[in-house]
């Protein structure tokens, strides 16, 4: 049960981990929808997750911190750095490149009221990605939470992989932010209803869609998260939408988790647009199926199969298969070796990649 105690609070910011732990994102994260910045409880629970325990080694001094507080108890810090080795570019040459290097700060003004900010030192690649994040997270009541500032609109479910089709092809990239606000209401433990209003500015910049000053983007969704503790099962059923001038996106996700062992998630997104010149595709259907199996607390096997099909002036079909491991070599140090096969109208390729992820 020690394992359950650890895993239940550590990585639940991701639905895959939420399904195998039965916990909610806000159990450990400052942001109610998850994210790198952890509360003290979230930080504490992950500090011992690693194949190698540094306690009795020369690395012990690096792991001596008693919390993630900085100077004062209500000021917390963290960071998330990712470096990857993969083939990329038109020539598909192997390259080592930084994906992100983001320090975080959060200030707990009073109980359940956080000010949060981050900065990415790696130059964003896409116009919708922003270097700064600045937001307020507030939970005035146990069943009500509020988020405002530069935030990523809630749509679908989070992944810890930037290439998942349902995020990448739908242009919901990591570090994508809009000025907006979101409200979360949880009338039951297993039910959360979300609604939000955002500026469409950054997404429009990426799509090259002209917007007027009164344009707004609206989004919302419903998450069902029933649990069956007796059988050790957790479930996920989620539906969400995002509406922007001329563009409609909606998604449905379903998942089942075997506590402490495995998860299975199906994620479907449909993106429709009638903006001339935005894309030769007027409709895209994106499907992702992912499976995870925890071999050890710090060693997870992952598989994912995806397909994106586009219809319109032209037609496209892309498929991807990913097989890999998530290895927490040391606490706060993760290695992710993967084998990736991809088939597009331009190229069919298979490669191995590796990602080094250091976080705190």
């Amino acid at each position, binding site marked *: 049960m020690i394992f359950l105690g650890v895993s239940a609070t550590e990585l639940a910011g991701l639905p895959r981990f939420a399904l195998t732990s039965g916990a909610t994102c806000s159990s450990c994260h400052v942001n109610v929808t998850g994210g790198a910045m952890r509360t003290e409880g979230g930080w504490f629970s992950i500090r011992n997750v690693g194949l190698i325990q540094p306690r*009795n080694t020369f690395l012990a001094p690096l792991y001596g911190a008693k919390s993630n507080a900085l100077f004062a108890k209500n000021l917390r810090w963290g960071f998330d750095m990712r470096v990857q080795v993969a083939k990329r570019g*038109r020539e598909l040459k192997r390259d080592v490149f930084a994906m992100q290097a983001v320090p975080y700060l959060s200030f707990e003004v009073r109980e359940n009221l956080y000010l949060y900010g981050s900065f990415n030192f790696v130059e964003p690649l896409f116009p919708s990605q922003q270097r700064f994040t600045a937001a307020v997270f507030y939970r005035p009541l146990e069943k009500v939470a509020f988020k405002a500032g530069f935030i990523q609109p809630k749509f679908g479910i989070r992944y810890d992989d930037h290439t998942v089709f349902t995020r990448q092809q739908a242009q919901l990239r990591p570090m994508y932010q809009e000025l907006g606000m979101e409200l979360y209401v949880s009338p039951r433990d297993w039910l959360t209803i979300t609604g939000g209003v955002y500026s469409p500015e950054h997404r429009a910049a990426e799509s*090259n869609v002209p917007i007027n000053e009164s344009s707004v983007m609206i989004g919302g969704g419903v998450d069902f998260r029933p649990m069956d503790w007796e059988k050790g099962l957790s479930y996920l059923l989620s539906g969400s939408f995002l509406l922007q001038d001329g563009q409609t996106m909606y998604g449905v996700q379903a998942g089942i988790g075997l506590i402490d062992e495995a998860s299975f998630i199906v994620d479907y997104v449909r993106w429709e647009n009638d903006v001339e*010149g935005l894309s030769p595709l007027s409709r895209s259907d994106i499907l992702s199926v992912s499976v995870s199996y925890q071999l050890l607390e710090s060693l997870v096997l992952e598989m994912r199969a995806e397909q994106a099909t586009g219809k319109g002036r032209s037609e496209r079909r892309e498929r991807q298969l990913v097989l890999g*491991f998530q290895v927490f070599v040391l606490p706060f140090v993760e290695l992710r070796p993967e084998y990736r096969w991809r088939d597009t109208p331009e190229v*069919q*390729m*298979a490669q191995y990649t590796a990602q080094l992820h250091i976080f705190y």
Partner: protein
Amino acid sequence: MKNSELFDSARREFIVKGLGVAGGLVLASSTFFSACEFTEFKSPSEPGETNLVLDTTTEQYNVLAAPGGAVAVAGVVVIRLSPDRASALSRICTHQGCDLDPNDNGSIVGDRLRCGCHGSEFNTGNGDVLKGPAQVGLRSYPVEIRGNVLTVIME
């Protein structure tokens, strides 16, 4: 046992375990995965080395008779910019190699040639990158206009 000996013992144990785990993972995964790596490019083809002669009185190329017309030929996109000016750009997006054929995956909006895959945009006149994720511009080829005939100089 002294503290320093304890430290050395723990250090040795850590190094052995660490190297074992990391080495095993790297070796096993890279050996297996390297053997299964491959890359097979499909369409479109790279631009050739023979000049392209396009007669705008023919049905195939008549869209090039008027400004704004564009057509993909062999490995290039030919765009009629004005009555006395045309451009020819590689039709392979420099980001991920998608086809920029304006009648298929590409789009021309104003002076921008946009890739339908990931949204990169290039100047229709010279191929310069106007918007990422592409980092490198499209190769541009000179075009001569004589009467109704456009010649793309590929040599």
